[in-house]
């Protein structure tokens, strides 16, 4: 009798093990006929390109205002990379991720400002609190099929937002609260440049984690259940548990970005946790491209920079934003990056 450990005989096949050619091969895909990349290179090529771009960017940024915008892009991108795991890969929608961002920010801020915690430790505590909350909310909701998660997170987001506004003793209410600076390895992180490098590093780590997750058994299970839950269950995937896990990890991504934001800006208001912010985050993911980690980064970059650039249109800023979104949805429903990739694939030999 065959146990689960054994398999049909002779079914494994040795695959060729290709190697990278030159340093340039780290950035450029192989020419046609030149063989295939090793899997790690195929997986991380974009990561190398992103690292290079972020390393060169400071020379293009004329002043601290631009550094500030770049830092906001980075923080939004971290949230979006996590949110994309949930929306793009697992096919679940959260309308409350700004609340996780805000909660992470406030836990970190309150513990460090009012209880004298080490900010790094407070950040960790924020991630744990948010992770637990996400788990407690998601577990029962995800047992139901359909888009109940969107409704539940919408409600949760509103509740968190209200609590932050009304718990004035802890949060300072609508007036906001001051947050002490971040200390890492005994040095305070101050100044836009230092923060730029810190956020760039954090974003690289976030992208690295997301890429790893997507190309793992858990990630494939996610992508599978997004297209057919019945089929996923038929190959022993516990879909409820898998969706819960990715929801928790995406909430933790948002929480860490929120904590970083709190310590970076030094001042926090409940607006960070508001419902419109949640919608903005979802829009970034959808615009950049569903199920594309780099798409999430691009979407975050565009929708963070665009409002700054659109100030020339004064009162029409929101109109322009809406127009751009509508055009994207009509002409590139899959989002910018996947459509661009598809276009290049067709155009290039």
């Amino acid at each position, binding site marked *: 009798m*065959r146990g*689960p450990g*054994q398999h049909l005989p002779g079914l494994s096949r040795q695959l060729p093990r290709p190697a990278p050619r030159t340093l340039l091969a780290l950035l450029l895909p192989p020419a046609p006929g030149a063989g295939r990349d090793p899997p790690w290179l195929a997986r991380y090529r974009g990561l190398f390109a992103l690292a290079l771009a972020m390393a060169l960017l400071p020379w293009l940024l004329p002043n601290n205002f631009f550094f500030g915008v770049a830092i906001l892009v980075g923080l939004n991108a971290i949230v979006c990379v996590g949110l994309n795991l949930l929306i793009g890969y697992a096919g679940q929608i959260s309308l409350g991720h700004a609340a996780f961002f805000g909660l992470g920010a406030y836990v970190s801020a309150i513990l460090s400002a009012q209880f004298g915690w080490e900010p790094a430790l407070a950040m960790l505590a924020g991630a744990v609190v948010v992770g637990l909350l996400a788990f407690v909310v998601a577990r029962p909701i995800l047992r139901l099929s359909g888009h109940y998660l969107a409704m539940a997170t919408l409600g949760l987001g509103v509740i968190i937002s209200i609590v932050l506004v009304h718990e004035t003793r802890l949060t300072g209410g609508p007036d906001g609260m001051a947050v002490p600076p971040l200390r890492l390895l005994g040095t305070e992180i101050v100044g836009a440049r230092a923060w730029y490098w810190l956020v760039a590093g954090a974003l690289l780590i976030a992208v690295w984690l997301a890429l*790893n997750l997507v190309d793992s058994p*858990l990630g494939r299970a996610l992508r599978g259940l997004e*297209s057919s839950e019945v089929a996923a269950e*038929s190959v022993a995937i516990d879909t409820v548990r898998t969706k819960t896990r990715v929801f928790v990890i995406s909430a933790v991504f948002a929480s860490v970005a929120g904590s970083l934001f709190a310590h970076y800006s030094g001042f926090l208001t409940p607006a960070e946790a508001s419902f419109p912010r949640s919608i903005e985050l979802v829009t970034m993911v959808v615009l950049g491209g569903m199920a594309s980690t780099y798409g999430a980064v691009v979407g975050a970059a565009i929708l963070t920079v665009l409002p700054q650039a659109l100030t020339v249109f004064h009162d029409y800023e929101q109109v322009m934003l809406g127009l751009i979104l509508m055009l994207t949805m009509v002409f590139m429903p899959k989002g910018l990056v996947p459509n661009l990739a598809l276009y290049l694939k067709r155009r290039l030999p």
Partner: protein
Amino acid sequence: MSLLEVSGLSHGFGGVAAIDDLSFAVAEGEVLSVIGPNGAGKTTLFNLITGIYKPARGHILFAGREVGGLAPFALARLGIARTFQNLQIFLAMTAAENVMVGLHRHLDARMLPALFRLPWIARADRRAREEASGLLDFVGLSELGEATADELSYGALKRLEFARALATRPRLLLLDEPAAGLNASETQAIDALIAKVAKSGVTVLLVEHDMKLVMGVSHRILVLDYGRKLAEGSAVDVRSDPQVIAAYLGQAGSSLAQPPSAARRPPAAPPIDVSGEA
């Protein structure tokens, strides 16, 4: 010893009994086909055995253990795999990745090791890729591993689903109309595939309308009609059973052939060639 034992199983949809007091057993290593006219309850039976529906009454024993009412993923973990009548393929993934999802229960699917891509995850991934490639060879899709599933033909997708189910390393494989929509040569390939799988020791439960395929590949045949067992036995027995012929061809000669609810049967039930010489 029987691997699967179904006893007194009943399940209905709003008062209509889809499966009605059904009992049968499948021996380890056997290929048992379930046939019957449209609406006989074949797919409902599959959905009960694979946990998509919870049985209203009766027992399902797998390897001696009561499994009725377990969740589909839990049944898959025990070694029950299936294919679907209307394909359930992960269309946005490559063929190889589809099969790798099938290996899920043999891989480490925890979150933290995956996030940091710890060394054993990378190693297991490579082995999974090799195994998926081997399985694609096995079902005759060797060259298509890197193709996205939505680029594949219908026949190829049928075989891909087969490979994904095999990747779970099942003890019992349920095939729901594996030849539906295939042409003669594709059906022959599926036929050979089922025989190959059965020979390797996997127990197969098959639902199929192509009688030539059924008669050729099955050790035994179970005939359902209105959710009840009409006949059970070898291809020869079943083929000559007057009740079976009546159920398929709608002959009114024998009163035995008429189930009490026969009046509900649509008059133009598609006649199926039971002779096996199609």
